[in-house]
């Protein structure tokens, strides 16, 4: 029979065996780890030699096509690879690019563009007016798998072409190799806004594929051929897009040889910048603490005017909200300055109509809707909302003023604004219920005019020069606004535009169709390797040919 002492001795020797096994196991891990250490320092030096890593905040869909793209991430790649007829200058006025100059016909309806000569596509073929005509005419084609923008709808002959009755779009004419004209039903000033958004594609690449199948033309979508400063080299989904310098770029040979769009996400860009794995990234959060971390790590911050506004949209057909006074009351109740100060840490502006306050025709005399809880209660009372049972919540004909606010997830600042808005409205007697859902679900509420809602928090990017009299989100329309819009969409006369856009913006302000919450300032964090950086709102890559990186 085995004695306990003997057994214990066996166990301890067994343990010693296990310990030594453990040690060998660990050292088996340490060796490869040491090898990995040896690999890592190489990372810091690898960037020597002409390479810029620019962050994009999500994976592009791989639709590298000027008129089919729909995400900001594809847009970043497209605007580096393709050229545009015009770009926007610091004042958001059109600046010649592929189009050198332009003239209007006497009646203002026809815009003739004189194109730059000697421009070549990345595959060597010449750029001509045929490419321009093809790019914009195909947007009107019946098989084009996207919605038809106002630009094409206002072109002469759109209806016949779009219905398939005729084979060519009469409003777009190629006059010669470097001259193309666009004829609209009425003089259309916002044409340039469309040109700034939609680069030119190569006819010789895309005419071979039936328009219906463009969405699935993977080979061409993933290997874009453009006239821009950088040529497409490689796309590794969810990792990076690699572009190489176009030595023959008509805007000048770029100084940086390789441009890499690194796919990242808002939570990790700060880490990546600090550790040197990124060179340029957008500032998504003006938190003081984050800014300090950047400063300590020798990362420069560049700030510029914002291009994106955040709104609380109203369903104006909702019986609670169809009275203008109620909507105005809600704007007065919300302390928008506090949102800018607390959520944006002062890096933003309050605005009061459907355009950026710095935009050209923004009226100086808009109702500022100052934060005034008393004024708010007055307006609500005038609209019939009183607190008749003293429970702190307004009521009217037995109905309580409850307000369901839909909040999309994904934008931290917007999510944080919701409880503040809830508190502000509680102070004037409106009971707000916050409902969170993902972005797709919330946006689909706005897009479905059959759905009634109370309020939705949503954002939108401004498009300089374009003023859309479409209030689908708010289910709103009035004859005066439509009249102003018709006026400014049928004229290229500066005075007419100034007057009518001004009146239109003032009308929207007065009708309080939505709460204009804030415009967050734009900004970029630049790593220590970046030099000669320059950019302005709406054109983050405009000056890229002059940027350089230090070795």
């Amino acid at each position: 029979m085995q004695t306990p002492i003997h057994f214990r001795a066996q166990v301890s020797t067994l343990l010693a065996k296990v310990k030594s096994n453990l040690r060998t196991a660990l050292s088996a891990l340490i060796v490869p780890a040491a090898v990995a250490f040896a690999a890592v320092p190489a990372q810091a030096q690898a960037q020597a030699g002409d390479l810029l890593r620019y962050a994009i905040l999500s994976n592009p869909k791989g639709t590298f096509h000027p008129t089919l793209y729909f995400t900001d991430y594809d847009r970043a790649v497209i605007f580096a690879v393709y050229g545009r007829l015009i770009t926007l200058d610091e004042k958001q006025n059109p600046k010649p690019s592929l189009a050198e100059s332009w003239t209007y016909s006497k009646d203002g309806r026809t815009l003739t563009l004189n194109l730059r000569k000697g421009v070549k596509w990345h595959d060597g073929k010449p750029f001509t007016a045929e490419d321009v005509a093809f790019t914009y005419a195909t947007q009107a084609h019946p098989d084009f798998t996207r919605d038809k923008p106002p630009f094409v709808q206002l072109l002469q002959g759109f209806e016949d072409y779009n219905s398939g009755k005729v084979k060519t779009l009469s409003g777009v004419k190629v006059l010669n190799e470097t001259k193309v004209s666009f004829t609209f039903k009425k003089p259309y000033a916002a044409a340039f806004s469309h040109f700034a958004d939609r680069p030119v594609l190569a006819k010789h690449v895309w005419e071979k594929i039936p328009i219906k199948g463009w969405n699935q033309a993977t080979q061409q979508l993933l290997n874009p051929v453009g006239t821009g400063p950088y040529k497409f080299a490689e796309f590794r989904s969810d990792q990076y897009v690699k572009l190489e310098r176009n030595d023959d770029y008509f805007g000048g040979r770029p100084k940086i040889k390789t441009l890499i769009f690194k796919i990242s996400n808002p939570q990790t860009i700060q880490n990546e910048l600090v550790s040197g794995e990124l060179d340029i990234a957008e500032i998504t959060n003006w938190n003081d603490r984050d800014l300090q971390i950047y400063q300590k790590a020798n990362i420069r911050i560049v700030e510029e005017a914002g291009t994106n506004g955040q709104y609380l949209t109203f369903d104006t057909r909702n019986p609670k909200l169809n009275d203008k006074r109620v909507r105005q009351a809600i704007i007065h109740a919300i302390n928008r300055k506090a949102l800018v100060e607390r959520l944006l840490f002062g890096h933003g502006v309050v605005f009061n109509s459907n355009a950026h306050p710095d935009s050209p025709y923004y009226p100086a005399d808009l109702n500022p809707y100052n934060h005034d809880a008393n004024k708010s209660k007055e307006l609500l009372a005038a609209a019939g909302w009183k607190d008749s049972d003293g429970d702190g919540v307004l009521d009217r004909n037995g109905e309580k003023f409850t307000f369901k606010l839909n909040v999309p997830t994904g934008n931290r600042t917007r999510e944080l604004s919701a409880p503040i808005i809830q508190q502000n409205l509680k102070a004037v007697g409106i009971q707000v219920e916050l409902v969170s859902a993902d972005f797709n679900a919330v946006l689909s509420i706005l897009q479905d005019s059959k759905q009634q809602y109370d309020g939705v928090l949503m954002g939108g990017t401004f498009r300089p020069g374009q003023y859309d009299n479409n209030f689908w989100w708010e289910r709103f329309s009035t004859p005066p606004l439509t009249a102003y819009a018709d006026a400014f969409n049928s004229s290229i006369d500066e005075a007419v535009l100034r007057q009518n856009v001004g009146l239109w913006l003032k009308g929207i302000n007065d009708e309080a169709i939505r709460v204009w919450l804030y415009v967050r300032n734009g900004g970029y964090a630049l790593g220590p390797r970046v030099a000669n950086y320059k950019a302005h709102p709406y054109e983050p890559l405009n000056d890229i040919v002059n940027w350089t990186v230090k070795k």
Partner: protein
Amino acid sequence: MLRFLLRRLAVALPVLLGISLIVFLLVHLQPGDPFVEMVSPDATPEQKAELLRSYGYGDPIGIQYLRWLGKLATGELGNSVLQGRAVTALIGERLGNTALLAGSSLLLTLAVALPLGLFIGLRRNGWPDILVSVLSFALVSVPTFFLAMLLIKLFAIDLRWFPTGGVVTIGAGHEGWGHVRDVFAHLVLPSAVLALANIAILSRYLRSSVSELVDQDFIRALFARGVPLRRVVTPHLLRNAARPLVIIISLEIPALLSSALLTETVFNWPGVGRLSFEAVQGRDYPLLMGIVLFLAVTTLACNLLADLLQAVVDPRVRLVR
């Protein structure tokens, strides 16, 4: 054995069908659609409705499901609505990355949990056992993403031992052996994150298995007969203790594949997890159904593997029927 396999495969088919039906319904009944982000802000509601109709999303849900099923029967998973590419191609290019992550974390788990579990199983209630227990509870209670961010802060930012994320060093253009080393460096932290919680769980299983076995008569008998240690540990101790482990590991594989999402996001690891998150956010139905099907098939296969391995590892188990 063959009959067992055939029977299992026959059962798998209706299970997959059921899974696909349930997921299809759940996904389509959610508010939103793929065109929400594809249309421009000036699109009228009518234009959007028309686009949806042309892609078949206006049809009743039963018809849509049968259409999808019909395509599946011919071996077609369809094209991603948002990316235009074939679903199989999209999953295929990410699969390698997820498999690499899951595989390496599994290896790491085994490499550490086996000796560790053995060690503390034999030294039950000693101070190493208590230390490991405390650490285990801590690791299991901490959420994955928090652990990930902690490790990144410590090892990637402060100590600069490893990169903060990604699968390769962008722009460095490593080739061959250098590329392998680069990927390895990027693999360490994410694998560690996925492995740590599993090490805790697995080593505890092993601990109870081993400590039970050590007291068994047949082990004592082996020692009494003077059988050398190595021949006690490997064939007798480990093989018996590992019995439940084999099953746990087989079931871990599908869990690893699906739980990799958070880790992949924090580490910017381009795997199937991130792809599925993109698909859900964008309501990319064909891609989503493709990924779900892939995960379902993997899970069923791993369950089958677990049952088969049980028969291998435990001769008392007979694969009946």
